[in-house]
């Protein structure tokens, strides 16, 4: 483990068919980091997340999780350390919210006996933490988008992971739910030292909630640092091909972007 990273990508390349979609990415997460991964559509954010979570092996380079080579670890071992919240989840069968959060215990529960008392306690604790106890007996399929997102995060927390990876956790949500989910992530990060890496579409929200940002363009990291360092007018113009003016957020002082449309 170099420099105390708990999750580290070293020189990672990846291609689906021809042409690299991830090019020589090196990125390290330390325990307690909360990092936003930003970049335009097709820049490789989701792909990078899938590689970091071990779902797809890199074409070259390596991923290190707590000092071990991710490629050598079983899914069960990985799932005890990394939980992933997908952008969308198409749930089969009308499992209740409680049953679904319990699925997060899969990497811990013994195969034959199923849930033990300890597992049920964890499920109750994380549901309380997120504040969704009142949904416990509802079928997941009947929930609204915001409720679903909270349930999926809760299921991930039931894995008791060290690292939480999220793919666009706010993308289909109304702003109240966006704020709710991001506040929850920040609270988990601050209170429990949960390491968080999330891809983000909304740059202003990313600046508000993440200590560090990584800007990805065409599969390469073009900027990495605090929101002030990454969200610069030149970077945005080059990567997103959009004109913006960077202002300061009125209460928190983090960068806040205002879009400057072409003259009409």
């Amino acid at each position, binding site marked *: 483990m170099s420099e105390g990273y708990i999750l580290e990508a070293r020189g990672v390349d990846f291609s689906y068919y021809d042409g690299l979609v991830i090019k020589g990415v090196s990125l390290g997460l330390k325990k307690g980091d909360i990092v936003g991964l930003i970049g335009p559509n097709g820049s490789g954010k989701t792909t990078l997340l*899938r590689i970091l979570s071990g779902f797809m092996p890199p074409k070259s380079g390596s991923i290190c999780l707590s000092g071990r080579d991710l490629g050598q670890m079983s899914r*069960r071992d990985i799932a005890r350390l990394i939980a992933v919240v997908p952008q969308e989840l198409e749930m089969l069968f009308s499992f209740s919210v409680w049953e679904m959060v319990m699925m997060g215990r899969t*990497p811990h529960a013994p195969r034959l006996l199923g849930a033990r008392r300890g597992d049920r306690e964890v499920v109750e604790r994380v549901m309380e933490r997120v504040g969704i106890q009142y949904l416990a007996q509802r079928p997941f399929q009947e929930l609204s988008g915001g409720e679903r997102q909270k349930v999926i995060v809760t299921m991930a927390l039931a894995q008791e992971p060290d690292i939480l990876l999220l793919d666009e956790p706010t993308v289909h949500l109304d702003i109240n739910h966006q704020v709710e989910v991001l506040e929850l992530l920040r609270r988990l990060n601050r209170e429990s030292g949960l390491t968080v890496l999330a891809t983000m579409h909304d740059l202003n929200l990313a600046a508000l909630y993440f200590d560090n940002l990584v800007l990805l363009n065409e599969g390469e990291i073009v900027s990495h640092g605090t929101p002030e360092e990454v969200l610069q007018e030149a970077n945005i113009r080059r990567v997103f091909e959009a004109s913006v003016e960077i202002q300061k957020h009125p209460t928190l002082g983090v960068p806040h972007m205002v879009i400057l449309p072409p003259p009409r």
Partner: protein
Amino acid sequence: MAKRSLIVLALLGGVLILGVVLAASLGAVVVPFDQVARLLLSRLPGVDLSPTWSEGEEAIILQIRLPRVTAALVVGLALAAAGVIFQGLLRNPMADPYIIGTSGGAALGATVALLLPVQIVWYGFTLVPLAAFVGALAAVLVVYNLARVGPRTPVTTLLLAGFAVSSMLAAVMSFLMMLSGTGLRRIILWTMGGLGGGRWEQLLIVTPLILLGMGWSYLYAGDLNALALGEEQAAYVGVPVERRKVTLLILGSLLTAAAVSVSGLVGFVGLVIPHVARLIFGPDHRLLLPAAALLGGLFLVLSDLLARLLLAPAELPVGVITALVGAPFFIYLLRRSKREYGF
């Protein structure tokens, strides 16, 4: 397992035992229910009951009815369990035990065996069940290898490859049927399925195979739950998806092939009983898998009973009963539940 689940399974098991005794007692010669129960109990180790039944009745129950009822029971167990496995694994409500080629392979195997002029008997198996068993597994093997893309087996490719191979095998079978002349009737009867062929020697081999397959699948009930989240998310909660897929495909196919070797192609049970069980017991595979299996066994035992009784002394194909009785019951359940049935 939760206490509630154990109670449900115990109740189902109890009803199933009653069903078996009832099916053994009814027929051309009616042996009273309590006599059958006493007779069966007397066969248990450590139970000593003086016979209150005639030797003739004993022969009818033990040598004729019980093999047949047992055949219905294990075939029902196997098909319903395989149906649950395939529906969960392939994430497809129309999946049944035959969906990835077992039916076509088994039917072709059986047809060839029926048309061969030789008779071979091996451990109580005639050539037909053996050929059906081998044909079913061979077809699945071909389908699986056709569907594999590198290290993965995408579900869509699997379903389509299964469909293509089944169609081809069915065409070959139709061709053979055209040429078969007097064998035609036997082939048609075999494809409609039936439990009249149950023999103890054969059941003694097939039953352990089916119980083993079900027990083994049960180890993966929790993983089948996780697979409902989709393959990618299942991997994220710790399921080795591709490995599990292969194991469950093999187990499901083995259960199906074992069932087919006893009964021919009995339809409906493997498709609809899993849905009925899901409507009644919910989607958790830790309860669903055993509950659907017991329900399938019960359903097929009673269906076969009706098939024997309705037009006695003639016999209806059991597939006619399973669909004729089962379909309306399924529709009733589907309409009765206030919620939309969320597959």
